[in-house]
């Protein structure tokens, strides 16, 4: 608002403006100079999501060589914002987007759009060797490797041992969602899930459908012609679990807006038996930290149990969700060789162990779970459970149209209180088909 105000102060203001202009020129020059690098050494920009940034910054420095420097650029915290920001750059063929941390579901979208450089031959072998099956699957698109798995995330069932014992539930054997919901409801406990209208709700739905032997869509490499399978017995089984939980006393009061953070506090409430909770690997370090700050006692922490993701259908092995971060190389980078080399370096075994130890982000490569540092930081059974979960888990649909699929499912399956196995899977299948055919707005 420069219009308002008198003309009497023209002089000081113009002087001020001149000073400001001079200042901005100085800043601009400095930025340009630093961007070029004083010795003409190329800088690789690495776009990272805000998880474990300290370790990533350290590895950006360690993986910088005499030929190039790696510089961290921070992406927004929301997954949608991360995706749109990267997509905007890549759609404009930005040559300064060299490395990027990608959520697994972005890999097929970006690879299909021609925005990612393939890891060919040896580079591909190097980044995929020894990687657990779950994370490995996330970097493959049309049988080619498009990213380097860096860290992997999975969900397990966290619970209070005392609550499971009171319910008479044998947690050494696989449990089903039905059993967990009943056990919680009959003993004053709850089951914490993620059912707000957002991506993690799709993670839950997808895992339950996979666990019942079905899938949301198949033949996803056909793009729009993918086969919509959500209206199946598996889809109905998943809907039945959601309906059962929503109608049960085991539902938490904020079920319809629940996310990864909302149920953490209900594990060790002031009174009450605690809860069962589906959550990612970070939960362990979160509760361990509470012991240090004195919020919970060591005795309470010892009561924290963990088990494999519950089964949707009894006897059918569950498919724990697979998440994490893969390192992709921009297709329009000026330094493809350096960038591919740097991607391998930041996803190296040392980097994976450091991320797990310092930031609680678990390795994508199986052998790293045996490293002494991790064995010391986590109970060996938990490390083994995570490894098995990642090995036998299932990813979300790999499709160039994943954003459409996810939002279409969210729009028909939310709110969880309105899910009905007789109608929701059928309605969502029809809507998803219409959306893929370009016959409906989303």
């Amino acid at each position, binding site marked *: 608002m420069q219009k308002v105000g008198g003309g009497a102060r023209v002089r000081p203001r113009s002087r001020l403006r001149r000073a400001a202009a001079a200042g901005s020129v100085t800043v601009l020059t400095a930025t340009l100079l630093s961007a070029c690098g004083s010795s003409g050494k190329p800088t690789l920009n690495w776009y990272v999501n805000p998880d474990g940034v300290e370790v990533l910054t350290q590895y950006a420095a360690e993986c910088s060589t005499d030929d190039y420097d790696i510089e961290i650029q921070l992406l927004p915290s929301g997954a949608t914002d991360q995706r749109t920001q990267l997509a905007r750059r890549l759609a404009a063929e930005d040559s300064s987007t060299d490395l990027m941390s990608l959520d697994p579901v972005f890999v097929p979208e970006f690879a299909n759009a021609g925005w990612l450089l393939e890891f060919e031959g040896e580079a591909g072998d190097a980044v995929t060797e020894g990687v657990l099956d779950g994370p490995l699957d996330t970097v493959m698109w049309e049988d080619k490797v498009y990213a380097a798995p860096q860290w992997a995330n999975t969900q397990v069932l966290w619970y209070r041992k005392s609550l499971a014992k009171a319910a008479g539930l044998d947690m050494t054997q696989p449990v089903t969602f039905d059993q967990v919901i009943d056990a919680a409801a009959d003993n004053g406990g709850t089951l914490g899930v993620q059912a707000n209208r957002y991506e993690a709700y799709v993670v839950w739905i997808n895992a339950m459908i996979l666990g019942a032997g079905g899938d949301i869509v198949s033949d996803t490499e056909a793009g729009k012609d993918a086969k919509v399978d959500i209206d199946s017995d598996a889809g109905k089984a998943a809907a039945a679990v959601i309906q059962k939980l929503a109608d049960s006393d085991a539902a938490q009061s904020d079920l319809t807006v629940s996310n990864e953070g909302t149920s953490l506090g209900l594990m060790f409430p002031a009174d009450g038996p605690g809860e069962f909770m589906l959550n990612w690997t970070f939960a362990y370090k979160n509760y361990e930290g509470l012991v240090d700050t004195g919020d919970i006692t060591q005795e309470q922490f010892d009561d924290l149990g963990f088990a494999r993701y519950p089964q949707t259908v009894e006897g059918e092995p569950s498919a724990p969700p697979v998440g994490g971060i893969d390192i992709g190389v921009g297709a329009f980078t000026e330094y493809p060789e350096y960038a591919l080399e740097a991607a391998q370096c930041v996803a190296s075994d040392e980097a994976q162990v450091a991320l797990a130890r310092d930031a609680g982000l678990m390795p994508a490569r199986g052998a790293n779970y045996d490293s002494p540092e991790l064995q010391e930081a986590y109970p060996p059974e938990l490390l083994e459970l995570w490894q098995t979960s990642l090995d036998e888990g299932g990813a979300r649909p790999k499709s160039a*149209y994943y954003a459409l699929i996810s939002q279409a499912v969210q729009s028909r399956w939310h709110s969880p209180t309105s899910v009905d196995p007789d109608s929701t899977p059928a309605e969502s299948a029809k809507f998803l088909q219409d959306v893929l055919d*370009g016959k409906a707005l989303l």
Partner: protein
Amino acid sequence: MTTQTETPVKDRRAAKPVESDRSKAEARLGQKLVAPAIILMLVVTAFPMLRALYLSLFNYSLTAPDDREFIWFGNYAVALTDPLLWKTTGITVLYMVVTVAFELVIGFAFAMVMHRVIFARGIIRTSILVPYGIITVVSGFAWQFAFSYQNGFVNSWIPGLAADFNWFGETTPAVIAIMVSEIWKTTPFMSLLLLAGLAQVSEDMIEAAKVDGATWTQRLTRVILPNMRAAIMVAVLFRALDAYRIFDNIFVMTAGAQNTESISFLTYRQTIEQFQIGIGSALSVLLFLSVLVIAFLIVKIFRVDLADARQEK
């Protein structure tokens, strides 16, 4: 785009009545002088618009460039037959009508204050204009905090409202919150335009009405408002078109949840979030056309000649 009035004319009396050679030459010169600006405008506005028109004829996703296919007006058919479009159009019209109505009334009151105030004129005028100087995203966040039941003050200020009432949990309160933010932010703009209109009303006419014994209300409705019609139309037109394209406040305050999404937001989601360039372009073309229709309707309703509004006659 008025070209003739701005060209340097040495002898105005001679130039006006007959179309002399000189006036023709001057008109040509005027056209030449204005040509660079026109070309620049075509490049920066017409090209993107034509490009959007072209893209709207394709079924095209940014993440699947190979699947792009030409489908004529298929996207328009999908959009126009989809209930979602009509639902968002309805809510957008609601935003527009309610906010412009409130802004017109409050804005007029502010304009009167700014016009009549005799002391601390600069400070009062400036403080009325402050909200307009604040970035919409910032005001959106400020009002979101104000309405939040966790750390806001609105719940405690309204008697009879529960302290944990969630304004963003349902459609109606969420829409009200968005409208309040929008009205707060843009009323000063409205009052600025109305102030310009007020200043044009001749004091002589008001004096004459006073002498004739007209009451304050009569002077307002019979003298001031009719003479401000052009200014009111410009203010309503500008604000209505702005309000119809409402985006920032919704994006910040609800991100489109609880059915608060406007037609601009729907377009944004298709294009930017889902990479559906084809249907997104079709929606933006439809948005453009509806803006034209609204502009046309407002001009018709107020029966004002635009040239008259600019005092060219």
